[in-house]
């Protein structure tokens, strides 16, 4: 199975600041995604991280708030901008693709637990 790492694993931030989360996959993948899991809730897709082009955002999420980069096939970043306490969540990176040695499997990183004060 694929190994997906995220940095930082957790952070406590002040409102109004920004945090960039990094996601690294140990092999080239077709698709990378960013999800949010609010406390006690299920996962919601934020956006698809497209390699070499702008991310595709889901309804309710905008680029100004959650800018995403994907400079190559194994790395992506998500920035949570101008944070408020409502942004306190776990942010998870996900990857899918036949390169992962398990066709059709979709794997998740360990998550970044963000607390905004």
């Amino acid at each position: 199975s694929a190994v997906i790492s995220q940095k930082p694993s957790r952070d406590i931030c002040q409102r109004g600041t920004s945090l960039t989360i990094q996601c690294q996959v140990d092999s080239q993948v077709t698709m990378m995604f960013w999800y949010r899991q609010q406390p006690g809730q299920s996962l919601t897709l934020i956006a698809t991280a497209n390699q070499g082009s702008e991310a595709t955002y889901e309804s309710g999420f905008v680029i100004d708030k959650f800018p995403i980069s994907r400079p190559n096939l194994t790395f992506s970043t998500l920035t949570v901008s101008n944070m408020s306490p409502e942004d306190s969540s776990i942010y998870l990176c996900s990857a899918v693709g036949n390169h992962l040695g398990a066709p059709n499997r979709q794997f998740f990183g360990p998550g970044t637990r963000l607390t905004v004060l």
Partner: protein
Amino acid sequence: ELKVEQNPLFLSMQEGKNYTIYCNYSTTSDRLYWYRQDPGKSLESLFVLLSNGAVKQEGRLMASLDTKARLSTLHITAAVHDLSATYFCAVAHAGGTSYGKLTFGQGTILTVHP
């Protein structure tokens, strides 16, 4: 819009008993996933189901898929405490530009008691 409904949302089981978690979804899909999440942890991939009638088993867990009914089940046999966790089903959006996107169910919090 793809909607995914799980039930029950909370499940308290005695060790040794059997039970089933249900996952209903609203539109056609070619892949359905089951994940496990322990408190404070990320998601562990349990099963991916690709076709109508697919059945996968791993230990005390068995997952099945009925694409015509848009229903998947996760059956737990002879529950043990180690199975206590939150279980999510996730349904893949149909292909094209939506390839790889998942919509998750609400999750089922399973607690196994002695």
